[in-house]
């Protein structure tokens, strides 16, 4: 195993950039790969991760306070949303800027069917799948006109759809009151599975589980299910069809992939994840209003996917967690500035979106494949850049 630069070994860049192995196979990389794939190591990592996730609420509550457990629950919700958008943007390459519409549909579906607004109180096990199905249908409806559109136009049209949904939610309170307009729907039933209500403190095996913990565990279960479904989709025929469409739609059609159906499926599946997350959000918050479903939310979810690493599940999860936790952490900047400078120079709440925008620009300029990309994606982007450079 000779190396091209004369040394007996070379530190392999594949450890850090994820590019495929070059001609120089070295001792260090070999050892790392074998360790990475050892089943005992893999199981240990997963079990440790699972244990950490289970005790997370207790640790966070003790270290940072109850509000951070709530933030953790929201982080799980956003992970679900980001994974849903990941199917549309990351796998299928369809830039969807109106994803929050599906979140809204799922939330309102739950809200309208489990609150005093219409007097209906459907059970949770019926509501969540129902919400997912309804959102699926909306996904197909919103995706159908966009099938022939390219990236930029698709983005604008989906943006328009997101806004249309929000405008309708805001204004469908006259003459027939469907969505209760700007006030939104409140007093939504909390989530209850049979006789076990999540909105009560329970104790089990000597541990007390406040309301937030209950919701956290439910969200954790569903997030794991969503991650599992995403993983299986990635390696399925449909997943490969999506990747084929993303890389070259004409070639994919030439290979016999029904691009229309596959794209609609991408929209529908992504939408259904959003719908599930929406339903959970409605049950958790107890209140939904059109103000929670603005274009900024859409862009934030897109940021999570793009900044984390499009099409790569761990990257997307990282992006979602970062973009939920960092703004909350930025709130501490206020008191910090107070302590350092004696007054608050810039309100952290106002800075939040500004920092988002700057982060987007910087990441796109410096590392367009995201913070934690998949090797396939990175090669795609590198090849794309080289091609357009040559062309």
């Amino acid at each position, binding site marked *: 195993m000779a190396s091209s630069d004369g040394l007996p070994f070379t530190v392999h860049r594949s450890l850090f950039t994820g590019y495929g192995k070059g001609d120089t196979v070295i001792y260090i990389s070999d050892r790392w790969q074998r360790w990475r794939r050892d089943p005992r190591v893999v199981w240990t990592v997963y079990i440790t991760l699972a244990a950490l996730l289970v005790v997370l609420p207790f640790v966070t509550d003790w270290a940072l306070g109850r509000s951070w457990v709530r933030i953790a629950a929201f982080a799980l919700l956003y992970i679900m949303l980001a994974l849903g958008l990941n199917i549309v943007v990351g796998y299928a390459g369809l830039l969807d800027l109106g994803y929050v519409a599906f979140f809204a549909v799922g939330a309102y579906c739950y809200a309208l069917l489990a609150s005093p607004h219409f007097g209906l109180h459907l059970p949770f096990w019926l509501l969540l799948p129902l919400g997912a199905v309804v959102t699926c249908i909306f996904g197909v409806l919103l995706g159908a006109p966009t099938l022939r559109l390219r990236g930029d136009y698709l983005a604008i049209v989906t943006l*328009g759809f997101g*806004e249309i949904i929000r405008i309708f939610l805001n204004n469908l309170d*006259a003459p027939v009151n469907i969505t209760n307009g700007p006030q939104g729907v409140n007093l939504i039933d909390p989530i209850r599975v049979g006789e076990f209500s999540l909105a009560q403190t329970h104790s089990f095996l000597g541990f007390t589980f406040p309301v937030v913990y209950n919701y956290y565990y439910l969200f954790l279960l569903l997030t794991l299910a969503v991650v599992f479904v995403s993983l299986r989709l990635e390696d399925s025929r449909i997943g490969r069809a999506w990747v084929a469409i993303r890389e070259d739609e004409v070639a994919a059609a030439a290979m016999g992939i029904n691009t229309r159906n596959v794209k609609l499926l991408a929209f529908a599946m992504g939408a259904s994840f959003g719908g599930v997350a929406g339903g959970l959000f409605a049950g958790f918050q107890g209140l939904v209003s059109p103000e929670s479903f603005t274009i900024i939310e859409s862009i934030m979810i897109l940021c999570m996917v793009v900044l984390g690493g499009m099409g790569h599940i761990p990257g997307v999860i990282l992006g979602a967690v970062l973009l939920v936790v960092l703004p909350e952490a930025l709130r501490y900047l206020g008191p910090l500035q107070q302590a350092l400078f004696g007054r608050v120079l810039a309100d952290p709440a*106002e800075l939040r979106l500004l920092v988002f925008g700057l982060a*987007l*620009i910087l990441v796109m300029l410096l590392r*367009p494949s995201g913070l934690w990309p998949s090797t396939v994606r990175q090669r795609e*982007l590198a090849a794309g850049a080289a091609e*357009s*450079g040559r062309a």
Partner: protein
Amino acid sequence: MDIFLQQLVNGIVLGAIYALVALGYTMVYGILGLINFAHGEVVMIGAMVALAVIQVLVGSGVPLPGPLIAAVGLAAAIPVCMALGYAIERIAYRPLRQAPRLAALITAIGVSIVLQNAAMIVWGRQYHSFPALLPATPHHFAGATVNDLQLFIVALAALIMAGLLWLVHRTRLGRAMRATSQNPEVAGLMGVNVNTVISLTFVIGSALAAVAGIMVAAYYGVAHYFMGFMLGLKAFTAAVLGGIGNIAGAMLGGLLLGMIESFGAGYIGPLTGGFLGSHYQDVFAFLVLILVLVFRPSGLLGERVSDRT
């Protein structure tokens, strides 16, 4: 018939404003193939800067005539927007010219967010009222009312559009711009400094945006940090309607969209029996966009583009 003429007048005024903003979108798309999401925010910054200058002048108590104050505001806003457009192009778009389209698009969104929030931090979240500088003497004819401000907006917009058409079709720079939009590489071989042309395109578009921003603020009487978003979206719709990349198309598209929106807002109540009100006005622009993109993606004046990805 009673509101038809009034809505027509409103539509033309609105259309003139949309046309000015749409020109910025269409010029950039024609040359770079990029939707400049930040363009709407440049309009907003033009309005806010002009408003700030005008407020200083009005507040200082110096007895200047209204139109002069407006002109000073305009003269202040235009260079600021031009510099902003140039900066955006150099910092955010030029490094990504060889990158895949998605990266440039997302960067454009990032720039838009940064500008919006910078404006929010500097000028606050409240609606700022724009003082009435032009004498709003109304003229009545055939049941419709037109005031001086509306006439001025239409006249100024027409003048600017005529100037732009002259620039693009009768000057060397215009020829260079047209050549770059057709094929940047060959244009470079023919001696056109492509980077300069692209920068100038952004600069000219931003100058138009500044004028449009002041017009919007004067017409509606308010300026707000979020005003650029919807306006930018509608202007982009107008550009697509007319045929993106086509300057005459942007003008036509702007006018048409203004009229569609005006008539739609006026007639939607009676048409739907009171079910839908005029707050659905924004939906019209999106519906138009979707219909155009589905049925005639090249727009009204665009060339027929084949269905290639």
